[in-house]
């Protein structure tokens, strides 16, 4: 605790942006955006510092802890609630993801004019919650941040959204709160079952804290509760509608980071604390995840709205994440399990960046045309080559083309899945064909094909507005060519406390 509390500093970036924005008059929207940009950039830099300082050698070298840079301050001692921040390899990666999406989200809303101040206040709150979830090691704090992250979605969609925005916002909120309703008793039961002394995950994760019977009973609550936010089939309904209605940057945050909270919660709490329960349920949930992969792709094939396509592709891609997690849950660090885990976390990261890129491209076109119907477009690559190229890159990444980050993520998950649940793995791989099919459909209809003269006059992405997108593409390509940079970090956290309970 002598050193600089860098994790708290990251957590404080959105708070600082929030507070500073509070005192700026709403008229000075440029200043508000600037403040957010600066703090977002600061959080990116700090996240990178954390990444660099994170010691990945903890398994080889017994002196290094898995969780590093820990800050532990008692908060409500009577209830055993502590403010504990720490990172392991997984949260390092996801924290950086959140920071990047925050930054690009701010940049891509640079042209916003409607209620700028309120918008950025809510957005900062959301980002704050997400950072908190990724960094907390205390279950109570975790849940607190989780709710902080979820709730701003309602006003963000209902006020700044489009296309049945109130409906979508309400639907999203209800789904997510239903998930929380499952979650809360689960978390409370963890607290009481363990003796009501602490919410600290590290202590609760010790072997023998929970009996296998208890684990089997409670695990579904946690998995389903978090799964709702992760867009798990069949509780994914909120996600595409929410995507469609949300403004660009919110879509980016929503698909880019928010859905990751669910998967992260499953990993960090459900699987880590309840390994026996996880192993017991793994196959069932793996089947659901696989159905989600294929089902999402099929539904995406029928959509006519850009954002719906992306929304359902998210269902499909999050299915891959969940499949990887369940592979890990089934066998622990054993043969294929670590592949599944590494792949799942990598996919969380890659999907976050990729979806952000998708939405920023679609948002760019929508802002000018106020139309998102695929059938109304054609040959965009000739009309707005740069914007369409960004979309193409995201699409290729979504198809798992080598050279982009998600290729490795999917590869790892599928390798693990084929090893552990062979039939499911094969079906999931076959899902790639349908992924290709719906992506190609969008490409063929909107990006290629005869031009629609109506859109001949569209402005293309200029150098400044290309900046956030170039950042995203750069990240995708960087990790596409050098996956070890990220996999090493994830892996150092990956093969964890999962020895017991089998």
């Amino acid at each position, binding site marked *: 605790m002598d050193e600089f509390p860098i994790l708290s500093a990251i957590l404080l970036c959105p708070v600082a942006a929030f507070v500073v924005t509070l005192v700026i008059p709403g008229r000075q929207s440029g200043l508000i955006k600037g403040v957010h940009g600066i703090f977002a950039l600061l959080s990116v830099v700090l996240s990178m510092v954390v990444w660099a300082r994170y010691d990945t050698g903890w398994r080889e070298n017994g002196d290094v802890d898995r969780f590093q840079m820990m800050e532990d301050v008692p908060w409500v001692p009577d209830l055993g609630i502590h403010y504990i921040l720490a990172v392991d390899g997984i949260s390092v990666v996801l924290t950086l993801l959140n920071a990047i999406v925050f930054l690009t989200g701010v940049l891509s809303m640079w042209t916003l004019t409607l209620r700028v101040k309120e918008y950025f206040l809510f957005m900062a709150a959301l980002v704050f919650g997400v950072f908190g979830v990724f960094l907390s090691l205390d279950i109570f704090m975790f849940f607190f941040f989780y709710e902080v992250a979820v709730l701003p979605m309602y006003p963000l969609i209902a006020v700044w959204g489009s296309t049945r925005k109130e409906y979508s916002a*309400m*639907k999203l909120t*209800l*789904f997510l709160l239903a998930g929380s309703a499952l979650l809360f008793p689960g978390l409370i039961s963890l607290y009481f079952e363990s003796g009501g002394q602490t919410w600290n995950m590290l202590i609760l994760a010790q072997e023998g804290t929970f009996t296998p019977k208890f684990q089997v009973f409670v695990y579904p609550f946690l998995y389903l509760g978090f799964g709702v936010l992760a867009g798990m089939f*069949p509780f*994914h*309904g*909120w996600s595409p*509608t929410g995507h469609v209605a949300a403004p660009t940057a919110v879509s980016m945050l929503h698909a880019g980071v928010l859905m990751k909270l669910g998967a992260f919660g499953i990993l960090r709490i459900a699987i880590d604390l309840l390994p026996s329960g996880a192993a017991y349920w793994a196959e069932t949930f793996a089947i659901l995840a696989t159905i989600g992969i294929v*089902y999402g792709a*099929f*539904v995406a*094939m*029928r*959509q006519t709205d850009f954002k719906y396509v992306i929304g359902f592709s998210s269902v499909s891609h999050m299915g891959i994440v969940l499949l990887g997690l369940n592979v890990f849950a089934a066998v622990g660090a054993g043969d294929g399990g*670590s*592949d599944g885990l*590494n792949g799942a976390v990598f996919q969380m990261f890659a999907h976050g960046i990729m979806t952000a890129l998708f939405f920023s491209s679609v948002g760019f076109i929508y802002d000018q045309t106020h139309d998102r119907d695929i059938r109304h477009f054609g*040959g965009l*690559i*000739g009309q707005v080559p740069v914007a369409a190229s960004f979309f193409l890159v995201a699409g*290729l990444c979504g198809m798992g*083309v*080598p*050279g982009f980050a998600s*290729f*490795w993520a999917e590869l*790892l998950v*599928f*390798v693990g899945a*084929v*090893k552990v649940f062979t039939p499911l*793995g*094969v079906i999931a*791989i*076959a899902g*790639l*064909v*349908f992924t*290709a*099919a719906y992506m*190609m*459909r969008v*490409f*063929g209809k909107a*990006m*290629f*094909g*005869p*031009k629609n003269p109506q859109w001949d006059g569209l402005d293309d992405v200029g150098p400044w507005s290309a900046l956030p997108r170039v950042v995203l593409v750069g990240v995708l390509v960087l990790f596409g060519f*050098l*996956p*070890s*940079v990220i*996999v090493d970090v994830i*892996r150092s956290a990956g093969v964890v406390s999962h020895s017991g309970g089998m």
Partner: protein
Amino acid sequence: MSYETWALALLFAPLLGFFLALVVFRDRHNVAAAIVIAAGSVSAAASILLCVGGPQPTVSARWFHIGDITIAFGVLLDSRTLLMGAVVGVITLCIQIYSLGYMAHDPGKGRFFGFLALFEWAMLSFVYAPNLLQTFIFWELVGLASFLLIGFWYQKPSAVAAAKKAFIMTRIGDIGLFVGLILLFRATDTLDIESILTLYAGSSAGGAPTEIIAALLFMGIVGKSAQFPLHTWLPDAMEGPTPVSALLHSATMVAAGVFLFARFHELFMAAETTRMAALAIATFTAILASTMAVVARDMKRILAFSSISQLGFMLMGLAAGSLFAGYFHLTTHAFFKALLFLVAGAFIHRCGSNDIVAIGRQGAARTMKVTTFGLIVGGVALAGIPPLSGFFSKEQIIASLGQASPIIVAGAYAAAFLTAYYTFRMIFLVTRPDPESAAQPAGPADPDHAHGEPTWAMNGPILLLSLITLLISALSAGALVGAMSEDPIASILGQASHHASIAEMAPAIAIAILGAVLAFFEFGKKGAAQTGIVARMPGLERLLANRWYIDAIYRHTLVALATGIARVSHGVETRGFDGGADKVADATVASGRQVARRHSGRLQLYIGGAAILFALAVVFLGFRG
């Protein structure tokens, strides 16, 4: 320079070219083209040098590791990769130069060259790949690059559809490849190709796991090399610019599948059942595609069908157990088929039509001497008429079928006969047009692409490829008559070639000549009707022209099934999950309304109720305990 340097230059030159051409100089067409051609030259020179230098130890650098698996990016320099690499390098360079002329007037020239470089990089990296992962990565990238190239004229819906089809159909095969590679990795616990091959080299019967792996890998090959039942994408892929067809469908993309078979030849040899199935599929494909070529009039489509059929031949040779035969045909075919495509491109460039009858009627053959020369060299080679190269390689394949079932052998002869027949049909229709023929010109596949006589940039590669074809022919013929002790390609591969006697070759020669003669009487002879035998049987012709209705069947079964499932899923989504959620929400709201209606808004009633309830609760709790 050491061979490592060449190997690195070979791989990275196209990557650099791709980046510079596509990202930096996309709009400065000639700069982009120059960069890409320079990169192509480096790669071609390096590949030839390496090939001449003979096998060397693998060059590889640790790329990264995932888990306990170390992944290396490198260059495997054994005989198979060297030969294939040289073929790819040379042909790619020829086609890049040719594109200078063919694409001179295209507004997307810079982009085109960028894609070409991307394709070359992917293909070479695939060929030289020393481990399974690199193989798979670049196999996929080859698919991506071919998607970009086939769909290059993105404004043309048919081109986009073709690119889409190619990508998705090869992807179906890729599932098999992907699963197969994972299982292979699991079975052998190594990614290194050489170790895997050593592992399988000795064992003749690998048992069920090997069979499954081999079958899955073969699924990938079927997709990539356009074998039945995944062959339908290749004819459509002719929608791309002609240099693309020449590149993709002669030596590179489609040959990647055959190359993969050759690469894992030991593995396939250990899987007896799969090998037999592969042989049967290859033979069937060879015949099927030839029959389609017999009635086609689009020059590029004829060549496309013939590619499918010749790929079938190669796989037949490989599956029959002769690595040399299949590989030899792969090499010879690469050159003469590339040549033929370039020739076709030159005619299309000149006449603005793909229709061989229309091309013939314009009398193009008389003015375009170089092109016609190339057509005849390539055509004769394709038809398998001695003494050109196609004959030798095809003969090797037929000879390697020795132990196979007579049906397969008969099938091979039938395909060879049809090949000779449709090739000469094409040659005669182009070179000896019948002015009286009232054929309707087919619509041009490259619209507005009549740009006049081919320039040196187009004629040069045609000449070069003709010469290479002739050279290979001469070398093979020399080997045959004993002028050289060993067939050059066999020596590169380190495999024994099959030295057949003239008597053994007789049937093959006879069949090829028979096909040519039939074509001569129907199309070549003065005053011939220029109507094929098939054309006299309208039912059969319609069947063949519609490619056995396989496309239609797919459209009505598989595609319909997929769309059907998608539609059902969509219905389930909107009415089931979404609708269900909405119903729940509506019900909640409705019940809320009901409850709200009970509320009079009279505070006093509420307070009284609360007081009574509280009192009751207190009494209940108080008296319970």
